């Protein structure tokens, strides 16, 4: 794996002409999708695909089409914020039908080890190529605060269980599963949460357990993120695990307050708050997008950063705009090349 050399390899994979050859022959030497990006060391881009609250599959299609051609894979979230949403496995299948490569998220909050391994097997059965395994927000924050929190496994043991299933075809209970699944295994880390000096070591545990890529919490504090990356490099993690820096736009004063005070684990430093609140309210959203693109460009220069993970809270139409402003061009996914934001008309999804 050459995940430690992303920036040198990146240009080869970006910006082929719209009428270019299909993905496999695009002259990049790599295959499309997240595994292709990771294996070839090409700068990876993932984005969050928020499922609609209702059960209208066409809306998933619309959201997916806004991302098509711009991302290597899309994360399909698992009841984010401990609020009930359609199942991530169903959303992953819809994303696949829409031509996107899904990263199925799976949290420890709602299922015990039987349910978790069952969903991992289900994902394998449906050909979902990537899984992202995480602890999950506490029910306290969701729409069913009286629910029983499960947390039978934690994120590290869940990653270990997934790798045991894939690499030795065995369930935690010992039973053998054939053929063994083949997903790429991902995890998350929050470089900004206390104890900050332990965060890279915690990621090391996930890498030891089997994580091959990691997506981070929103980066708003670039110097603090750079310190985390230095720790991760010192532990040799960036050679074994591709780090995708989490980025996303703050689009309104209300969103800023929400992210600062209501979402656990998001750290927005004071200078960023001042910058956002100093612009007139009608320009707040544009400033938030500009800030996000600047951060994307900055984190890309930090050694060991292998990609970005874009979280837009349902505004999938913003993803191409942010990537383009950050100088991260469209890519080839499933043989389709992303169009520039200016060629896309005004259709914003969300």
């Amino acid at each position: 794996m050459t995940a430690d050399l992303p920036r040198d390899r990146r240009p080869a994979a970006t910006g082929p002409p719209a009428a270019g050859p299909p993905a496999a022959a695009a002259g990049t030497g790599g295959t499309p999708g997240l595994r292709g990006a990771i294996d070839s060391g090409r700068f990876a881009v993932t984005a969050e695909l928020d499922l609609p609250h209702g059960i209208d599959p066409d809306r998933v299609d619309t959201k997916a089409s806004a991302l098509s051609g711009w991302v290597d894979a899309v994360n399909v979230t698992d009841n984010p914020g401990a609020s009930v949403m359609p199942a991530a496995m169903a959303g992953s299948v819809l994303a696949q039908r829409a031509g996107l490569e899904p990263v199925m998220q799976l949290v420890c909050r709602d299922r015990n080890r039987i349910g978790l391994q069952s969903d991992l097997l289900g994902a394998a059965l449906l050909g979902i190529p990537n899984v992202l395994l995480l602890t999950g927000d506490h029910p306290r924050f969701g729409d069913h605060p009286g629910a029983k929190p499960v947390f039978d496994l934690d994120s590290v043991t869940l990653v270990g269980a997934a790798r045991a299933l894939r690499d030795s075809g065995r369930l935690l209970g010992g039973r053998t599963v054939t053929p063994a699944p083949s997903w790429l295994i991902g995890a998350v880390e929050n470089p900004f949460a206390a104890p900050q000096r332990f965060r890279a070591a915690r990621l090391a545990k996930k890498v030891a357990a089997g994580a091959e890529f990691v997506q981070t919490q929103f980066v708003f504090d670039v110097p603090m993120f750079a310190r985390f990356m230095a720790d991760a490099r010192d532990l040799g993690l960036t050679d074994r695990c591709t780090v995708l820096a989490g980025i996303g736009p703050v689009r309104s004063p209300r969103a800023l307050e929400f992210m600062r005070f209501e979402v656990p684990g998001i750290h927005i430093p004071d200078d960023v708050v001042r910058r956002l609140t100093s612009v007139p309210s009608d320009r707040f959203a544009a400033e938030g997008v500009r800030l996000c693109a600047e951060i994307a460009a900055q984190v890309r220069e930090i050694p060991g950063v292998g990609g970005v993970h874009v979280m837009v809270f349902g505004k999938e139409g913003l993803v191409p705009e942010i990537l383009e402003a950050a100088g991260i061009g469209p890519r080839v996914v499933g043989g389709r090349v992303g169009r520039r934001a200016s060629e896309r008309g005004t259709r914003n999804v969300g």
Partner: protein
Amino acid sequence: MQDATRGAWPRPYVPRLPARLNYLLHHLLTPNRVNRRLARWLETHRRTGQAFTAAEKAVKERAFGCRMCGQCALPATGYACPQTCPKQLRNGPCGGVSPDGACEVHPELRCVWVVAYERAEAAGHVEDLSLLQRPVDHRLTGSSSWVNYWQGRDDGLWADPEGVRTRLPIWPTTGSAA
């Protein structure tokens, strides 16, 4: 008020004794011929065994906020009990801890893993936190972790990350590696 809505969830607990003292006291518990025999005897004498477990609970509840998982992780966590984390995470803190160390579920309390890190660091044991902890065996809930320790049931409770590929059945990572 907070207890009315969050009372049932575990609450991060600050241990009563200094970490260094706990590391010293642990030597008293190291399995030997005497306490192994005691453990066997306690498991065959139900009444006395129950009294022993109740005594252990009383001591450890006060000292560590013990919740009697029956498989004690304390020696590897700076003697701060991970079962007092509202998510009962045994491999380190979740991502919801605030930058200054507050628990996401009980914001008025410090994250037990922040406490664990500080205690382990002060006692020169910070590398213990990198050990991989296996999932809790819920069959042992409520039983004496001392008896389980002396009986050898804690063997493999945690693993050195370097050895994970080859060593422990709870981390059966590569079938052919051993």
